[in-house]
């Protein structure tokens, strides 16, 4: 129980401080608002990556459908914002003023029933957490109670992602279809579009991210986290020890879903936009790639992965509009071939030992990292 006595071990504490310094101080001071807003967009994927670390890295449950939860959270937020942007005076050009523009184009003449509660911000915030959480609970219960796991589970999550995309695109009168919900303007009367609002939203998002990191770290360090790791390594042994494996898996999956949903909601706020292109199979796989590049065993690694991959995506596509996809593909292949544990594995193998040695030689007392047989690393 030495492990649980400290919330962060030393290297994690350094990771925490480094991330906090970069996100709270360095980036806001060095970037202009446009670039900062892009970082805010990247960070929305960091929420998803964080959830994937819990569910995939620790629990061993590979979900290829995180876009579903990202989308559900994002759409909940977007529905609230869209309703506020569709006030009667904003939409007087329509044949039915007061409803979102895409409903009017689709000959819907009154606000559908399931849209009504999204007039309330409190309901919306609850829905952002509960809708994806419940949905994950249903999928998780249906799958894990029947001991469906591994590849089959991954395929089913992917099917769910495909189904939800088709549903959203098909029901365009209710969802905005392939266009998505655009032109989101205000949050309770506060304009989310100008520069100062973008800065405020950025900080709100970073605070939320750190809250989620805290929760994830807490889960990891409690007995629950240990059981997740045990389950990943030897599922049967955990089951024979009397634990309900299914329940723990469901929990990890639901947590990942809720984190992804929070990411989706902050996405809608920061980008002012939500569309089915974040829900489907491709974005869901991309989210897994961010986590893999960063390192699925490491909370901070996965977050860096989300930031760096998206940054690479933006800068490559700005410099090489026609060839950038090849560059990005090459990057992924290189990372997976050369560093299967991602960037954090690279760090742990090459950079961390040097730092350790530096400290060790100074203190000449290397006892501190006795328990660094990382909680996360698979016990190979």
């Amino acid at each position, binding site marked *: 129980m030495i492990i649980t006595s400290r919330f962060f071990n030393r290297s994690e504490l350094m990771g925490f401080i480094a991330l906090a310094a970069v996100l709270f101080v360095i980036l806001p001071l060095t970037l202009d608002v446009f670039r900062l807003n892009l970082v805010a967009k990247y960070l929305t994927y960091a929420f998803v990556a964080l959830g994937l670390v819990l569910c995939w890295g620790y629990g061993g449950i590979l979900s290829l459908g995180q876009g579903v939860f990202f989308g559900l959270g994002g759409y909940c937020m977007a529905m609230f914002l869209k309703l506020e942007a569709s006030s009667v005076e904003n939409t007087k050009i329509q044949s039915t003023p007061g409803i979102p523009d895409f409903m009017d184009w*689709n000959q819907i003449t009154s606000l559908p029933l399931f849209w009504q509660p999204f007039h309330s911000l409190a309901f919306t915030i609850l829905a952002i957490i509960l809708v994806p959480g419940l949905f994950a609970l249903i999928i998780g219960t249906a799958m894990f109670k029947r001991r469906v796991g591994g590849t089959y589970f991954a395929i089913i999550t992917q099917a769910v992602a495909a189904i939800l995309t088709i549903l959203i695109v098909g029901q365009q009168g209710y969802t905005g279809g*392939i266009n998505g919900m*655009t032109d989101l303007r205000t949050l309770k009367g506060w304009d989310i579009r100008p520069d100062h609002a973008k800065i405020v939203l950025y900080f709100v998002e970073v605070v939320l991210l750190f809250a989620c990191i805290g929760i994830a770290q807490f889960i990891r360090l409690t007995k629950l986290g240990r059981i997740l790791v045990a389950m990943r390594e030897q599922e049967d042994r955990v089951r024979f020890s009397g634990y309900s494996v299914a329940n723990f898996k469901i929990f990890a999956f639901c947590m990942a879903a809720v984190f992804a949903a929070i990411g989706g909601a902050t996405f809608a706020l920061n980008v*002012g*936009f939500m*569309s089915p292109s974040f829900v489907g199979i491709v974005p869901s796989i991309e989210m897994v790639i961010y986590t893999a590049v960063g390192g699925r065993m490491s909370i901070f690694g996965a977050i860096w992965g989300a930031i760096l991959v998206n940054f690479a995506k933006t800068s490559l*596509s700005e410099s090489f*509009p026609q060839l*950038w*996809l090849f560059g990005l593909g090459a990057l992924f292949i290189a990372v997976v071939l050369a560093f299967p544990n991602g960037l954090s594995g690279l760090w742990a193998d090459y950079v961390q030992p040097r730092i350790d040695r530096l400290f060790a030689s100074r203190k000449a007392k290397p006892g501190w990292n006795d328990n660094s047989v990382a909680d996360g690393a698979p016990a190979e």
Partner: protein
Amino acid sequence: MSDEANKGLLSPLRRKLLMGMAAVPAMTMLPRASFAQAPATSAVNTTGLAVTDTEVTVGILHSATGTMAISETGSIEAEKLAIEQINAAGGVLGRKIKFIQEDGASDWPTFAEKAKKLLVNDKVAAIMGCWTSASRKAVLPVVEQYNGMLYYPTFYEGLEQSKNVIYTGQEATQQILAGLNWIAKEKGAKSFFFIGSDYIWPRTSNKIARKHVENVLKGKVVGEEYYPLGNTQFNSVINKIKLTKPDVIFTDVVGGSNVAFYKQLKAAGIDLSKQALLTISVTEDEIDGIGGENIAGAYACMKYFQSLDNPNNKAFVPAFKKMWGEKTVIGDVTQAAYLGPWLWKLTVEKAGSFDVDKIAAASPGVEFKGAPEGYVRIHENHHLWSKTRVGRAKLDGQFELIYETADLVEPDPFPKGYQ
């Protein structure tokens, strides 16, 4: 650079005064000396756009990658050709056009992000871009917020009008109504079957077409079906067509689905030389994929065909092929994209300024006599006056012009009685 920095320090009132003063010499100078010497940058650019004494920067924002790349590449090529020609002819207000190309990657939020980058970071004077309605809807709030100027090339569903957008393609009524009138008269058509892809443009277009068929032509719509984007199974609807035997099949199926649709239509034994089919979504670009033998005989309703016989087009087509290869084909949207840089140049010269507000105000009435489709003019509602044409697909993938309206058709993005 220092010029820009100073401006930020001035009070709004003083800035306004300066703007007014700056405009005076520009206006008096233009008629006399516009060829001899370019007007001073401070006079033609009061809002800090990327304009120097020798250069002006515009943005090109289309999908160079992803599923839409196949359609949007033509637009990129046309815009680059127009920019090159304008530069060869002396540029805009004495400045060469430089372009920054960004990739929207067939992903609507990426379009929004890149539009913002072009406007905020690069301070481009105008954006030539977008293709699908979804990408335009994503970019629209951005160009309105940062007061940019977007030249949008695609024929689209209408129901939109913005100070910050010039729509160089046709809106729905311009594209559809004259074509329906023609086929009703020519073929005595009374019954119509609508097939479309399931998103905003086909749905709105069909809504307008249905009202026109029912209220004006006194005909009947015997079926209306939608399929998801990318759908490749049309057998059930083809069976329905065989059952209902409509006089006209009216289609707005888009993209790759077209290939499957026309092949299956042919396989089902529907002969397009006997069964009239009117499409508003197939241009020369699409026929490249469909294959001329699968669609020969079908009618398409557009404003431009590569085969148009007029002096402008006879210069345009070889110039395009010289730049982009002998095998390239030029569809309706490609031509509309070519208009963007030219209309912008003409508007800037009319306004005597690169300022977006002045361009938006000067746009109505701007005429382009060198358009490959023939003469066009910008309407008060920022759409183009243009002719509607019906062409018949030939085996070689080209269209034969069958009918064109006598006059330019007025753009009407919010048609009364059709909503």
